[in-house]
């Protein structure tokens, strides 16, 4: 379970090589994200699991960047891990020692361990599980299983253990939380970032953890205090910060060039990288806002086009789903609403069709087709008077429009039938 004995590959830490930008061509979104997370601190074992890559693909990408001189490896001493939670023979704060009870059907040592963990539930997840920061998912799981066997409440089912029933539940639920967050690569990456660099690099390692922890009073931290604590531990060396800012500026420049040429998706990926490297710079966020609108327009258009294909292929439900996704990007776009209304009508969901058709008319009152389609939906719903108003407006806008005219005919036939 110890990190120091990990195979060499996992513990490698890549960083960006000098002049990497010159050697790096256009990046796909997944590559961009992976690149933005290479900072000389995050180990390879973690990088391969975050972002849009399958781990083996991430490996290939990193190997390729190593070869091309985009990325290089740091010299890194294996991170000293904090000793695990199950230190035997640790002594507790006297206030906690008072909770021990020899008469309970629970070994004193286990009681001590439970009290220790309970008093420090807010400690970092990897410490809770007793694994090093760069532990693989498999090791995390093994640690979790080993701890489960000790602290799962079922182990002490019906035994006389007094207050420890409740304590065990709290401890065990926290252990599960630690396992679930550490074994999901995305949440694990976030936790890694918030913890900052390994203590072994920037501070002298604290002495035997058991004693050190014992003098901290067990407190229930409020959310604000907890966040303040996290911020205090978040220390990045100045030169690393300066590098990141410089890189961010480079990406922003690339964004401006791409925007000027109307290459929206490229511009969006560049400005996103800029924000990833320097989240504090407001200018980048504004730039993102501008390009976002364009990207959404492009996305929505392609979704509506795909929806049309689905409709032609006889799958209007899928078409409707795509249109609604497009609406998620551009809710105020009359054409998208109109497309959604058509799809909904095809699937016979007249309630939704009416909603979208009305929105289309609201947003695009000068388009004859919007009114004509609204008229059709209203007619199908039996709302003849409203349908008549709509079709009249459609014909007013464009008396020769075939759809509007056929809608008027359909209405007339309906009225005649009574």
């Amino acid at each position, binding site marked *: 379970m110890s990190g120091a004995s990990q195979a060499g590959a996992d513990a490698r830490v890549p960083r960006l090589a000098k002049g990497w930008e010159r050697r790096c061509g256009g990046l796909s979104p997944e590559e961009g994200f992976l690149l933005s997370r290479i900072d000389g601190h995050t180990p390879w074992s973690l990088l391969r699991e975050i972002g849009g890559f399958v781990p083996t693909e991430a490996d290939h990408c990193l190997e390729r960047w190593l070869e091309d001189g985009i990325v290089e490896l740091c010299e890194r001493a294996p991170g000293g891990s904090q000793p695990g939670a199950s230190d035997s023979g640790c002594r507790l704060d006297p206030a906690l020692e008072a909770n021990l009870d020899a008469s309970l059907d629970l070994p004193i040592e286990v009681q001590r361990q439970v009290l220790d963990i309970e008093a420090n539930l807010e400690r970092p997840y990897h410490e809770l599980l007793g694994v090093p920061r760069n532990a693989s998912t498999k090791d995390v799981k093994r640690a979790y*299983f080993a701890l*489960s*066997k000790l602290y*799962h*409440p*079922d182990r002490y*089912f*019906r035994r006389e253990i007094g207050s420890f029933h409740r304590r065990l539940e709290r401890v065990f639920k926290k252990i599960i939380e630690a396992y*679930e967050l550490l074994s999901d690569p995305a949440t694990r990456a976030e936790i890694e970032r918030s913890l900052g660099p390994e203590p072994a690099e920037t501070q002298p390692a604290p002495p035997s953890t058991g004693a050190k922890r014992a003098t901290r009073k067990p407190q229930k931290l409020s959310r604000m205090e907890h966040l303040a604590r996290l911020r205090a531990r978040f220390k990045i060396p100045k030169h690393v910060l300066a590098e990141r800012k410089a890189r961010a500026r480079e990406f922003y420049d690339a964004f401006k060039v791409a925007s000027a040429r109307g290459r929206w998706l490229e511009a969006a990926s560049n400005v996103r990288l800029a924000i990833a490297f320097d989240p504090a710079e407001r200018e980048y966020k504004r730039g993102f806002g501008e390009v976002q609108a364009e990207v959404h327009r492009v996305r929505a258009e392609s979704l509506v086009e795909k929806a049309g294909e689905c409709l032609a292929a006889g799958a209007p439900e899928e078409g409707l789903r795509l249109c609604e996704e497009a609406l998620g990007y551009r809710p105020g776009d009359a054409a998208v609403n109109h497309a959604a209304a058509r799809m909904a009508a095809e699937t016979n969901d007249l309630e939704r069709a009416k909603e979208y058709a009305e929105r289309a008319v609201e947003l695009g009152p000068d388009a004859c087709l919007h009114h004509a389609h609204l008229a059709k939906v209203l007619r199908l719903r039996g709302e003849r008077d409203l349908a008549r108003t709509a079709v009249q407006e459609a014909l007013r806008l464009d008396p020769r429009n075939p759809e509007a005219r056929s809608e008027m005919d359909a209405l007339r036939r309906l009225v005649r039938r009574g």
Partner: protein
Amino acid sequence: MSRVIGIDLGTTNSCVAVVDGGKPVVIPNTGGYKTSPSMFAISQDGKRLVGHLAKRQAITNARDTVYAAKRLIGRRYESPEVRKAAEVCPYEIVRGPNDDPRIAIGDKTFTCPEIAGIILREMKSVAEEYLGEPVTDAVITVPAYFNDTQRQCTKDAGKIAGLEVLRIINEPTAAALAYGIGKQSEEKIAVYDLGGGTFDISILELGDGVVEVLATAGNTFLGGEDFDRRVVEYILDEFQQREGLDLRQDLMAMQRLKDAAEKAKCDLSSMANTEINLPFIANDANGARHLNMELDRPTLERLVSGIVNETIKSVEQCVADAGLTPDQIDHVVLVGGQTRTPLVQSAVAEFMGKTPHRGVNPDEVVAVGAAIQGHMLVSEDRDLLLLDVTPLDLGIATFDGHFAKLIERNTTVPARKSHIFTTTRDEQSAVKIRVLQGTSDRAVENHLLGEFVLSDIPPAPKGEPEIDVSFDIDSNGIVSVSARDLASRQEQSITVNATGTLSEEEIERIIRENEAYDLPSES
């Protein structure tokens, strides 16, 4: 200390097992049967009958014989499943005061936990008969996909039967436990459980002394009974075509048909075709009518393939939820009598890319697993640790009708999640929270567990009070809610209006009423 029995309370059949001398044993009843039908009847002369005796007189006493009550337990009277059951059941389903479905037979009305309790009591006596000592503790299994209300009702049924239910465990997990005990290897398995009334699929990882559920999915209203139903419909239509007679209104004929359909279905698992022969099925102006037709396997498979495909879709979803592909799964274990159908076996084998494991008895393995879990809870033998999950998202209804998830499905239990609530009006003294379980984004499509009211909130401007509400799911998969005012650190008063379950008083009353009955099940 009394021993803990494991009871598989199935839709069609129930089974009881116990760990005896270190080994799990399936307990036969006095007639030598290892499973008993989950049926309860009141005979014409007012006698209460359970199990095999109840089944034997089901045809002549269809109106007052209850079967498949598990399909109704924990549901609302208006739910589509209860409506569907009411269409085909010969016994009468009425609306109870809590909007729950109740069954009227003889001159009494029974709640569903009560019916389940009567069957559990029967299994309890079978165990006591075999062990020669009283039994008070049990582990009872439920479909993995059962929601909180269905689990609570099952627990109540145990209470009614005079059992302390140590744990409610999921059927596929119990099967995996029975399968995995004593195994040293690390493996990933899929448990495909198709029983009389419910379907579950679970993906588990075994190894290192732990049985961990990775993901689970299912359908609590899909099972062998539906297979039977399709066959019955086919026979009815064929008969109507040939003879011009619709047998649907004839209760006795329908019961005979149902029996014959079930038997034909079972026969076709080992034979290529079978005969359905029901002389004197009906009487009309032309005299006595007889039903005699052939049913072959291809026809049966055509009738039920839709149902089987539904199950495979759930399997697909579950494998994806577990973050795996079918080839990463080492073994497939089939549980439940319905998995004897060749079509089911081949469909599962095709999707999983491997033949299912044949070493477990599909009718008994769940009870065995339950017995093992019961034994582990009370003894020093802790060979395996069970890490099970909750099958449904747990969350609350937001003001605009959406479902906000708090504990996602496939989270390991026991689990807890807190959420901070506050007021929306100045001086507001109470906040109502609607807790739901389900998989839909819209609150109205999910199952309402209950409405909780946080009251006695001290007057304050809106948005200021911070009440930390904790949602807990325990190892039984049962939900509880507690609240704490963050400012004062006091426990907030919180009242529960749980839907669909019996109150303590009702349970007490039912226990008292049932004490008088000593049910014969085998003559």
